[in-house]
C-alpha cells in the first residue's frame, strides 16, 4: 500500500512537493508584498511544508471532481452514473411527486412525534447525542407546531443519505422522522441526473439548500448562514470525509455495491457525535475555513526540543507523530516523503476533541485519512501526556499490530522532554494557549487571521471583547467566511476586500504567499486599516518563530 502512495499523491497535488531548499537561501523580507514568493512570507517553514500544500478548499473539491469523474471508472463526465432505480419510473412519478409533497410538511410534524416513526431498531449510541429530539411524552398540537417550528429555525441542517434515499445522518431530528423529506432529496438529485444534469443548490429568501453528490452518498445542507453555496458544499465534503475516515472509501462503495438500500447507520452508530462535533467546530474554528492548522504559541527553542524528541521517539511503522493541544498544533514530525493533508489533520483534531474517552489512557484506533489515502486504514495511537493537561500525543502508524512499539515511542518521547525540561515549558505555555490582540499594539484592531500558504499554518489571537458571546464569535467567523468566499469565488476571485459594516470593519488581502483577514472598529478609517496591516505584518514577522513551526522535522 505504501508503495502506491507517492504516485497517487503527486497526481493529487503538484505543489505538494514544493522544493523546501529554496526556503533558506533567500533572505526574508521585513514587510510583505504580493511580490513575496511562497516560502518567504512570515510563518513559512524553512524546512518546507509538512502538509500537502493547499490554497484553500477549492482545489480539493476540484480534484474531488476529477476523482469522481476521472479515476472511478463507473462515472463519466459531468454527472454521476444514473441510479439503478428506473429513471422512466422516476420521471413518471415526478409530476405526482408535488402532490405527494404537499403532505411532507404536515407528515413531518407527525413523524417528528415518537411512535409514528417506522419501527426500525434505534441504533445504539445515537440515543445519547445532543440533537433536538422531540420530547418523549406525548405532546399537544401546539407543542408539535413549536417542535416543527424550532426544527425549521436551526441555522444549519445537514443530511446524509444513500443514493437509495436511506437516511444516514441528520444533524437535527431523527433520521427516520425525516425519511420522506430525504426521499424527496434523493428524488430531486436523481431526477436531474436523469437529464444528464446535476442539482447544485436551491435558493430562497434567507436560506439555501446545497446538494453534494459523492457516490454512493448524497449530502444536503439547509443553511440560514451567510455562507455561499460553495462554502456549504465544502463543509459537506468535510462531513463526507469524516464518514470516509471511519469506513474508508473502499469499504463504503463496497457496502453499497453489495446492498443498494443498506442502512449505513448500522455501521456508523455512535459516530454521530463525531460528526456533530465536526459541524460545531467548523462553525467556530477558523482552521477549517483557512484550510490550515494553528500552532500553540511556543518559544522556538522549546518547540524544537519537542520536535526533536518526537523525531527520536519512532518506530518503522510510524508515518506521523503529532503533538497537539486544544486543536492547536504543538509539533508534527512526518516520514520524509509523506505529507499530511490539512483536512486529514482537522479530522484527527475533531476525532480527538469529540470524545473525552481518550483521556482515560492510551487509545489504539483505526482511522482512514481520506485525503492521504481513502482506500485504507491507518492506526492512530492517541493519548494525553498527563491526564490534567490538554497536551495530546497522536502517533499514526501503518501497522495495526504495532501498538506496543508505538506505545513505547510515547514513553520515550515523554522521557526525553522531561529530561530536557521541555514539558515544564509546555505546561507553562499551556497556561496561556492564546495571545491577546492587544499585544500587537493597534488600538482599533479587534482580531485577525493570518495564513502562511507555504507552511499551511495560520495564526490568530484569542477572540476577545466585544466578541464575548458564542453568537458573536460565530458571527465573526461568519464574516470571515463571507470575505473568504468572495476572495476565493470560483469565477471572480478578488485580491483585496475592504468591508465597512455596522459592527466592524473588515479587510481581506489575498496574495500568492499569504492570506490576511483583519477585523477592526467600524470607526477605524481606511488609512488606519492600511497602516494597521503594516504594523501587524511586522509584528507577525517578529513573532513568527513563536507562532509558527518554522523548522518542521522528519524522521
Amino acid at each position, binding site marked *: 500500500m505504501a508503495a502506491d502512495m507517492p504516485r497517487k499523491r503527486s497526481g493529487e497535488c503538484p505543489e505538494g512537493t514544493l522544493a523546501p531548499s529554496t526556503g533558506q537561501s533567500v533572505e526574508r523580507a521585513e514587510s510583505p508584498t504580493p511580490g513575496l514568493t511562497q516560502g518567504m512570507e512570515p510563518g513559512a517553514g524553512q524546512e518546507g511544508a509538512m502538509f500537502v500544500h493547499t490554497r484553500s478548499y477549492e482545489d480539493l473539491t476540484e480534484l474531488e471532481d476529477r476523482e469522481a469523474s476521472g479515476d472511478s471508472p463507473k462515472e463519466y463526465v459531468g454527472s454521476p452514473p444514473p441510479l439503478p432505480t428506473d429513471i422512466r419510473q422516476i420521471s413518471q412519478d415526478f409530476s405526482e411527486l408535488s402532490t405527494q409533497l404537499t403532505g411532507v410538511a404536515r407528515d413531518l410534524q407527525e413523524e417528528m412525534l415518537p411512535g409514528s416513526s417506522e419501527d426500525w431498531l434505534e441504533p445504539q449510541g445515537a440515543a445519547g447525542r445532543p440533537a433536538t429530539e422531540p420530547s418523549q411524552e406525548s405532546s399537544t398540537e401546539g407543542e408539535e407546531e413549536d417542535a416543527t417550528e424550532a426544527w425549521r429555525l436551526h441555522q444549519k441542517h445537514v443530511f446524509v443519505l444513500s443514493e437509495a434515499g436511506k437516511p444516514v445522518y441528520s444533524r437535527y431530528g431523527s433520521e427516520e422522522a425525516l425519511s420522506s423529506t430525504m426521499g424527496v432529496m434523493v428524488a430531486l438529485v436523481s431526477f436531474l441526473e436523469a437529464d444528464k444534469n446535476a442539482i447544485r443548490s436551491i435558493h430562497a429568501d434567507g436560506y439555501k439548500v446545497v446538494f453534494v453528490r459523492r457516490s454512493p452518498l448524497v449530502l444536503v445542507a439547509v443553511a440560514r448562514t451567510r455562507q455561499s453555496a460553495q462554502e456549504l458544499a465544502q463543509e459537506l465534503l468535510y462531513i463526507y470525509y469524516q464518514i470516509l475516515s471511519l469506513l474508508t472509501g473502499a469499504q463504503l462503495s463496497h457496502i453499497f455495491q453489495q446492498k443498494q438500500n443498506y442502512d449505513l447507520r448500522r455501521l456508523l452508530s455512535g459516530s454521530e457525535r463525531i460528526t456533530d462535533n465536526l459541524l460545531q467546530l467548523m462553525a467556530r474554528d477558523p482552521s477549517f475555513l483557512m484550510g490550515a492548522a494553528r500552532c500553540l504559541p511556543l518559544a522556538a527553542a522549546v518547540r524544537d526540543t519537542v520536535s526533536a524528541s518526537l523525531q527520536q521517539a519512532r518506530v518503522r511503522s510510524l508515518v506521523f507523530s503529532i503533538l497537539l493541544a486544544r486543536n492547536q498544533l504543538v509539533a508534527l514530525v512526518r516520514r520524509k516523503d509523506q505529507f499530511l493533508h490539512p483536512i486529514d489533520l482537522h479530522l484527527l483534531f475533531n476525532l480527538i476533541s469529540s470524545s473525552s474517552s481518550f483521556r482515560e489512557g492510551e487509545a489504539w484506533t483505526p482511522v482512514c485519512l481520506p485525503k492521504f489515502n481513502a482506500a485504507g486504514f491507518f492506526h492512530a495511537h492517541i493519548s494525553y501526556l498527563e491526564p490534567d493537561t490538554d497536551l495530546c500525543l497522536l502517533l499514526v502508524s501503518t501497522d495495526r499490530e504495532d501498538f506496543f512499539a508505538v506505545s513505547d515511542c510515547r514513553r520515550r518521547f515523554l522521557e526525553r522532554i522531561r529530561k530536557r525540561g521541555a514539558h515544564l515549558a509546555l505546561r507553562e505555555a499551556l497556561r496561556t494557549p492564546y495571545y491577546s490582540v492587544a499585544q500587537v*499594539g493597534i*488600538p482599533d484592531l479587534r482580531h485577525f487571521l493570518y495564513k502562511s500558504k507555504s507552511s499551511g499554518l495560520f495564526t490568530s489571537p484569542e477572540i*476577545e471583547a466585544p466578541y*464575548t458571546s458564542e453568537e458573536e464569535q460565530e458571527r465573526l467567523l461568519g464574516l470571515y467566511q463571507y470575505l473568504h468566499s468572495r476572495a476565493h469565488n470560483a469565477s471572480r476571485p478578488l485580491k483585496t476586500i475592504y468591508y465597512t459594516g*455596522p459592527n466592524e470593519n473588515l479587510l481581506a488581502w489575498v496574495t500568492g504567499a499569504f492570506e490576511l483577514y483583519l477585523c477592526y*472598529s*467600524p*470607526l477605524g478609517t481606511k488609512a488606519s486599516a492600511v497602516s494597521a496591516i503594516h504594523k501587524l505584518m511586522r509584528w507577525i514577522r517578529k513573532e513568527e518563530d513563536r507562532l509558527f513551526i518554522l523548522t518542521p522535522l522528519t524522521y
Partner: protein
Amino acid sequence: MGSEDYYLELCERPVQFEKANPVNCVFFDEANKQVFAVRSGGATGVVVKGPDDRNPISFRMDDRGEVKCIKFSLENKILAVQRTSKAVDFCNFIPDNSQLEYTQECKTKNANILGFCWTSSTEIVFITDQGIEFYQVLPEKRSLKLLKSHNINVNWHMYCPESSVILLSTTVLENVLQPFYFKAGTMSKLPKFEIELPAAPKSTKLSLSERDIAMATIYGQLYVLFLRHHSRTSNSTGAEVVLYHLPREGACKKMHILKLNRTGKFALNVVDNLVVVHHQDTETSVIFDIRLRGEFDGTVTFHHPVLPARSIQPYQIPLAGPAAVTNQSPVPCKLYSSSWIVFQPDIIISASQGYLWNLQVKLQPIVNLLPDKGRLMDFLLQRKECKAVVLSVCSQMLSESDRATLPVIATVFDKLNHEYKKYLDAEQSYTMAVEAGQSRSNPPLKRPVRTQAVVDQSDVYTHVLSPFVENKETPPKFVIAVLMEYIRSLNQFQIPVQHYLHELVIKTLVQHNLFYMLHQFLQYHVLSDSKPLACLLLSLESFYPPAHQLSLDMLKRLSTANDEIVEVLLSKHQVLAALRFIRGIGGHDNISARKFLDAAKQTDDVMLFYTIFRFFEQRNQRLRGNPNFTPGEHCEEHVAFFKQAFGEQALMRPTTF
C-alpha cells in the same frame, strides 16, 4: 342699476357754502381750493372755506366796488382782491402786521388785468391782456416789488398750482399757448406750442376756448388736456381729449388721444391719475388710464374708455341744521346740472346749491366691469387704494364660482410679482447706496415708498392662498397647479420664495397623499432648502418614510445645520453615522461622550456600545494620554455597564505608542 355699478362718486362730506345770489358772490381759488362767499362786496362779510379747514375764515371789508377776483396767498397770509381792471388791492392777514389795505397797479400802460394768481405766500403774478408781471409782496412795507415781467398778447390764461405753471393763450386763433414756470422768485418761459384746432369750414372762425383746456399732473407729469369737439380725422366722429405732455425742459409734445366717441358738453377731472370725462347730455362719465395699453400710431397713443360709461353714483344732499331732526328723507342731488363748475384736478362745485365736492373713484365695482383680468390688474395696480381690491380679485379668481383658467391666474400672479420685484430692486439699490455711503450725496436719495400696489408673498399667503387651500371643495389638482403657478411666477422674477409657501405646497400634497409628486418637486429643488422645511419633512416621516432621507439631505445641503443632523441621527439611533459625521467635519474632539454613550446604550446593542465606548477611550488617550474618563464627563454608569458587559480586562489600558 345697483350701486355696485357706479365707479365714480362724490365725497360724502362736501364743503358747504352759501349759495350764489345777487347779494352773494362766490369765488373759487384753485391754488388753495378755497371758496369765497362775498356778501354785498364784503361789507356784510366774507366767508372762506377750504376742503380741509372745517372752521371757515370770515372777515369784513369795505365795499369798494364789485369784486372781480379774490384769493389768499399760500398759507392765507395775504389777501388779494381785484375790483378794477387796473389794480389789485392787498390786505395782510399776518398777525401784528397793519391790516390797512394797499394797492398795486399793473406796470404796463393801458393794459387790463385779466387776473392774478399767487405762486407762493408772498409772490403774485398779474396777467394782463399785454403780458404778465411777477411781483414780490412786502407785507410789512405794504408794497410790492416787480421781479419780472413779460410782454405778450394774452387772450386768456390758466394756472396749474401743483406745477405752478401759467398757460397763456395768444394769437388770434388763441391756440398758441405760452407756458411760464415759477419757482422761488424766478419766472422761466417755457417753449410755446400750438394746439391743433379741428379742421373746420373757413367761414366759421373757431378759436380755442379756455373752456376746452385743462392742466393736470398725471403720473407725475404735467399735461395740457384739450377737449377737441370734433376729431380732426373726419372719419371718426365724436369728440376726443388730446393730451400734450408739458415737460420741465424741452418742447411740449402731443402724446395721447382719448376717444370719447360722442359729442356734446363735456367736463374733465383727473382723479387718481385717471382722466375722468363727464358728459352732460347722457349724464354719464367715462375714465381713461394713459398707462393702460392703447393703439400707438407712431406719434400718439389712442385710448378708449377703460370702462363703459356710467353716471356718478346718485348723491343725497345731507340735511344740515334743524331739518336733520325732522326725519324727512334727504333730497337727491341733481347730478351733471348746468350749474356745476368743474375744477382740476377733482373738484366739482355747484354754486347754485352751495356745495364743493371731491370726485372719487370706487375700485370694487370696477372688478366686475373689467372682464379682462390682466387689464384689470394693470388698472388696479396703478391706483392708490388698490391692495384690498387686488387681493379680493385674486381670491375671486380662485373661488369655486368664477374660477379663472390657469393661464389667466398665471398672468395675474406675474403682474403682481412684477410690481413686487420693482419695489424689491429699488429697496435693494437704496440700501446698497446707503451702505456705500452715498446717502450724503445730493440729491439725497429717498427710501423708495412702498405703494399699495406692492403685494408681497405674505399678503398673498395670508389673504389668498391659505384660505384657498383651506377650502376642501377645490380639487387638489387645481390647488397644486395654482400654488405651483405662484411659485413659478416668483421664480421667474427671481424673487426668493418664502418657506411658508413651500410648506403650503407640502401640506397640500401630503393631505392628498401625492408623495411621489412631493418627492419630484424636492428632487428638482422646486421647494428650496430651509431648516423649517427640513423639520416639516422630518415630521412627515411617519406618513412617508422617504421624507427622512429628504430632510437629512436638505439639512446637509444647508451645511449650517450640522447640529440638527447629529440630533436627527441620534434620535434614529444611528450613533455610528452621527459620530462619523461629526468626525467628518472635525468636531469629534469636543462632543459630549456621555451624550453618545447614552444614545448607544439606548439601542440595546452591546456591540455598538463597545465601539462607541472604545472610541471615546481612544479620544481620552489621545487628548489626555489616558483612556479613562474624567469625572466631569459623568460616564461612570457607562464605565460600569461596559465592565459588566465585557469584563474589567476589556477596558483599554493606558498605552504609549
